[in-house]
């Protein structure tokens, strides 16, 4: 055999061995617990919820699903269970679209939960790519088809995590591995599923959520250089179509499931920003959420909760890290409100909270020194 052919065989054989070794390691460690619950190695979890949810849906016991975007990402499952009862599984995904949320919910519904609590933002219903064109969500892994399993096994990044999880299970290596696993380089730093994407006990809430931050965020999104983002993708017709085809269809297909859907308590600045920098977007938000409210109260298995006009919270800017994201204290209030049904929309006047919100937005006065202070 001449040298080039021999070398070619070494290259092809060697690379095949590397790939197969990585696949074997991934199968053995199974970081997402796709094949079996963690036994050989301690279970570890990733904050990358689009990927992690594929494993959680299979590995966890639950009867309640908690879904949403980043506004619902810091909730603790044990808090949900304590306030609302049941055994919950949080599947919220930062920046997720309705298409992503519904795809993941459909996967979770195969485990027959009795209740879905769904934090709904208007913007999730904008047009987005097909789920198979979504670069962030491993759709085939949720489907558990051959391609999804192959991509999970023949995955270098996952093999790196597998090595790390395996090393963590060796007692004398564990302290070193724990110290280095900080979530920046390795993506599976969480040992308890209740801790996924929650704020750590030592997190400085006051530094992260305060009036100055909310004001700075307002100044930023209304800046002429960035205000176009406010209107990005907002199209009333498309949003209604997506809502009907995705959300309503799924809810109607699962009449045995209780759906608690809520509009979260954004700060009033979110709407004021639209009022001042993109009024056409604000109109779409009003019209679309009015449509959603009317439609949802007509479905017998849905409770709609609208927290957008709860002015005690939404006008107190110290509750926010920007114009929409509220603090953990508000998380607790949201759970209590849902349990009490305090802001549940009336089936006869579902848009009453929206009318209150409109009046609040119209009346909200911005101090002339507001922007200057925000930029300090």
């Amino acid at each position, binding site marked *: 055999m001449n040298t080039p052919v021999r070398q070619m065989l070494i290259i092809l054989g060697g690379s095949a061995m590397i790939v197969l070794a990585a696949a074997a390691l991934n199968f053995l460690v199974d970081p997402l617990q796709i094949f079996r619950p963690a036994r050989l190695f301690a279970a570890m979890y990733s904050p990358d919820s689009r990927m992690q949810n594929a494993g959680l849906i299979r590995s966890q016991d639950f009867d309640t699903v908690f879904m949403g975007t980043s506004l619902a990402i810091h909730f603790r499952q044990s808090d949900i269970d304590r306030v609302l009862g049941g055994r919950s599984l949080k599947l919220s995904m930062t920046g997720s679209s309705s298409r992503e949320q519904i795809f993941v919910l459909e996967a979770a519904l195969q485990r027959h939960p009795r209740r879905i609590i769904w934090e709904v933002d208007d913007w999730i219903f904008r047009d987005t790519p097909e789920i198979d064109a979504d*670069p962030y969500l491993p759709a085939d892994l949720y489907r558990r088809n051959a391609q999804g399993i192959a991509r999970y096994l023949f995955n270098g990044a996952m093999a790196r995590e597998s090595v790390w999880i395996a090393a963590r299970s060796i007692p004398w290596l564990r302290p070193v591995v724990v110290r280095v696993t900080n979530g920046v380089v390795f993506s599976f730093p969480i040992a308890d599923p209740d801790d996924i994407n929650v704020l750590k006990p030592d997190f400085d809430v006051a530094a992260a959520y305060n009036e100055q931050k909310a004001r700075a965020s307002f100044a930023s999104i209304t800046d002429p250089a960035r205000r176009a983002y406010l209107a990005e993708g907002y199209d009333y017709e498309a949003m209604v179509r997506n809502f009907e085809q995705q959300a309503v269809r799924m809810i109607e297909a699962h009449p045995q499931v209780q759906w608690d859907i809520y509009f979260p308590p954004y700060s009033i600045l979110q709407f004021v920003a639209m009022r001042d920098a993109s009024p056409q977007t604000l109109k779409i938000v009003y019209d679309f959420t009015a449509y959603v409210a009317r439609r949802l109260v007509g479905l017998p298995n849905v409770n709609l909760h609208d927290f957008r006009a709860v002015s005690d919270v939404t006008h107190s800017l110290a509750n926010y890290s920007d114009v929409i994201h509220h603090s953990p204290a508000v998380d607790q209030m949201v759970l209590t409100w849902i349990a009490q049904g305090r802001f549940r929309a009336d089936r006869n006047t579902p848009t009453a909270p929206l009318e209150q919100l409109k009046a609040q937005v119209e009346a909200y006065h911005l101090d002339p020194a507001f922007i200057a202070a925000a930029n300090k």
Partner: protein
Amino acid sequence: MLFNSYAFLFLFLPAVLAGYFAWGRLGNRAAVLWLMLASVAFYAVDQFRFVFLLLASIAFNYLVGFLLISGRLRRGGCLAALAMGISGDLLALGYFKYAGFFAVNVNAVFGTHLVASVALPVGISFYTFTQIAFLVDAYRGNVARYGLPHYALFVTYFPHLIAGPILHHKDMIPQFERNEASRADPHLILSGLAIFAIGLFKKTALADGIQPLVTVAFGPVPPSFDQAWIGALAYTFQLYFDFSGYSDMAIGLSLMFGIFLPINFNSPYQATSIVDFWRRWHMTLSRFLRDYLYIPLGGNRHGRVLRYTNLLLTMLLGGLWHGAAWTFVVWGALHGLYLCINHAWNYFGPSLPRRAAPFGQFAGRALTFGAVVIAWVFFRADSVPSALSIVSQMADPRHIVLGRGEIMNLAFLLLYAGITWFAPNTQALMGYDHDNRRVGGVATLLERGFFPYAVAAVLGFGVLSIQQHSEFIYFRF
């Protein structure tokens, strides 16, 4: 179809290679036809609706070229045929690539409501430029008569069709006509495999690996000083590894078929001036712009003022070639300005004493790199105001976060900087000599005992790093 996809690696490539050498036994024409059909199929997998456009473009240009070469037209007729050919190409390119941009700007200026939603056929910028060069050379009498299959393969040849390198007919078609090309050469296949593996690793492990850092600066949240630099530098390295990785893959693939493609990158971030940078970055585009735009405009033949004007104009159009947006125009204008300053400095600036030359080289390299990074911000940003906002953050060190994440990101960037600034490039490692049609030689990777093992590791980790959705950045241009 993507080079970094399982379907390409494990189905398309082995089948086309086997078919090429099998048909090659029947003669050159059969092998060329097979490769041409395979290339069209490669394009059709993702761009089926634009296959007819590609074939029509080939037929149109071949026909115009045939008229120009045939000698049946007088000089005026040749000029008219050339004008018709180039206009046809530019009209098609203008419609598919710039109609939307045109409508948006007309609407902005005149308050009209023009709508032009036209999908961009992948590769149209590349195959249009390739064929314009063919027509111009045919008009100049620099083209021999080529057979249609060879010409069609020259345009559609799958290693370059989507994102270059921009090929020249005089370089490629004679290679396609060689009978030896369609006979399997183990040395070339081995070398091609190694170059392809390096390119795959650059793309899947390095370029895709650093992609998350880019969003630190280019997302909706305004970055701090350090985050803006992290994002801008990350994009600088991502673009280089993405595009040079693609070019390496194209060169490697082509080499397996016995065809030498021109190199497209020569360690551009090691350039000591902007003039040097453009001799090292996207080299086939630089050559095209020089030969078919800058020189016909007058080049440097009519004094310094016109020279600088021509440079600016060439770079502006070069920027617009990349995409229909003002950000690309600003990027081109910036590089045009850089080039003018560079040439003016060469002419008017003081010459350094020999002892200070190393310092001058270092300063030149740092200054060039910094200028290139600033320009990439415009290349990447969604809009000119967004780019200006990021650049202003890069110039404002009062607002620094520098948390643990930022420190990790900076360490990551240092690794990439080390590779781009100090590591030898692929052609140096492999001894790839396009001009002399040679690969390998003394002191190259091929001669080392660890060569197959190193390539096996690079290929293995390159395959393991393939992500489900990872297009090449230059597919959009």
